[in-house]
């Protein structure tokens, strides 16, 4: 072997040491990973433009000029009509009754304040647009879109020195974005936390890598170890996108009760359920997801009805820290998250295991 197997095109693009991308909603995790030689993308989909600007400054003050990324959820479709009151009125009584049964059965406390549903419908687009304008104004080093195509902003971003990444779940989405000139494609498989495509990580990464040419491909979905990293590089990826890996790390602001559950969990403790949002998403099992699987349960509603229906359970559980009720998006790789380690240690452990894997296979460079 003539080269460092962990020094990839992505490392050259970003000037980073290791091809590990942490996707996180926690600024402390992002900074710790960046300062350990990896890269981090902060998820800001729920934040206002002012909050995003403040977070960008906070990160810049702590990473000594190193690059970082911000992820938004750019919508790809939107209903052609919108009224939250109309939506609420259309939730069937049978579903309201089932929700109330769960709330009583598990003694679920009500939220301390109203659940925020302000991004609904067309406002979703307006929010995405306003968030995006902040990223362009701030010349964020990497702008990542966790859903919709970022192709329309490529020229504006490149003029400001920003790179643009897009996350895809299907080969045709990847081809469209690569042809448009995105700077990297994140190929996310079914193993991932949250709302995934239905193609497995092993297949989608190889499919996208086969058509990517010089565009770096970043593998996502179930990646939590150095062996996963080595495998992703063998599939043709230039790096890995990791989320669950950081949820239980020491710097993470995830509730300690959830951290404990993540550390104890295996892949079997995750479920692909549409009972929370109406969209299928991978989460830790909880009473809510399990009750909706029962034979006598109504069929979960489409979004946004189901999200409105589940919102009191989710928010109430979190507000009152009911560990027996809480849930969190979690990928199938969660079984390898077994300790609450510092982020720096996680980076080094993943790197060390990946190198050991390559060494076992083909020997390491001198």
């Amino acid at each position: 072997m003539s080269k460092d197997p962990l020094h990839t095109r992505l490392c050259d693009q970003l000037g980073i040491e290791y091809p590990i991308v942490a996707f996180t909603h926690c600024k402390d995790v992002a900074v710790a990973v960046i300062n350990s030689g990896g890269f981090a993308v902060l998820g800001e989909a729920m934040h206002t433009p002012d909050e995003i600007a403040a977070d960008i400054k906070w990160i810049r003050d702590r990473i000594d000029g190193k690059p970082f990324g911000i992820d938004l959820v750019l919508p790809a479709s939107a209903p052609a009509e919108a009224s939250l009151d109309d939506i609420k009125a259309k939730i069937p009584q049978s579903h309201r009754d089932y929700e109330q049964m769960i709330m009583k059965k598990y003694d679920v406390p009500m939220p301390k304040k109203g659940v925020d549903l302000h991004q609904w419908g067309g406002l979703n687009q307006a929010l995405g647009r306003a968030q995006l304008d902040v990223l362009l104004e701030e010349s964020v080093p990497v702008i990542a879109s966790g859903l919709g195509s970022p192709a329309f902003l490529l020229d504006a971003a490149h003029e400001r020195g920003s790179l643009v990444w897009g996350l895809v779940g299907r080969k045709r989405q990847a081809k469209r974005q690569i042809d448009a000139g995105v700077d990297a494609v994140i190929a996310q498989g079914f193993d991932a936390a949250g709302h995934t495509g239905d193609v497995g990580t092993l297949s989608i990464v190889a499919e996208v890598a086969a058509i990517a040419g010089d565009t770096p491909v970043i593998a996502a979905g179930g990646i939590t170890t150095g062996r996963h990293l080595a495998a992703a590089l063998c599939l043709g990826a230039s790096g890995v996108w990791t989320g669950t890996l950081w949820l239980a790390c020491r710097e993470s602001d995830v509730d300690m009760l959830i951290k404990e559950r993540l550390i104890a969990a295996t892949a079997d403790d995750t479920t692909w359920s549409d009972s929370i949002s109406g969209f299928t998403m991978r989460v830790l099992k909880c009473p809510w997801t399990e009750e909706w699987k029962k034979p006598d349960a109504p069929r979960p509603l489409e979004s946004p009805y189901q999200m409105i229906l589940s919102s009191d359970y989710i928010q109430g559980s979190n507000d009152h820290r009911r560990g027996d009720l809480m849930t969190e998006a979690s990928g199938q790789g969660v079984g390898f998250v077994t300790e609450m380690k510092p982020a720096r240690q996680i980076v080094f452990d993943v790197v060390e295991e990946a190198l050991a894997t390559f060494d076992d296979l083909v020997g390491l460079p001198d």
Partner: protein
Amino acid sequence: MENRPNIRPGFDPMLAGKRAECDGGGLVPGSRYAARQEFTGTLTGEYYDEGEPAWRWYLMNELTHKPANFPYAAVWCESESIFLLNPLSRSEQA
């Protein structure tokens, strides 16, 4: 849409009546999660551009495939998320 600033509506006759798929989705209301939604339908040709750089959205109706219980008759699709079922011929593109 009517209440949002920086919206510029238009009509593309080349796309009017074209069957297409949309790899859609968006932010799940009240959460930080993205969710995918797939549609098949007919493009009306109506579109709007929002802001600068222009973010283009096309209207799709006559939906023959949509998420179960999707309550609407039409959907706006972001232009790069639309895949024509019968791509435009060269003469149509010219």
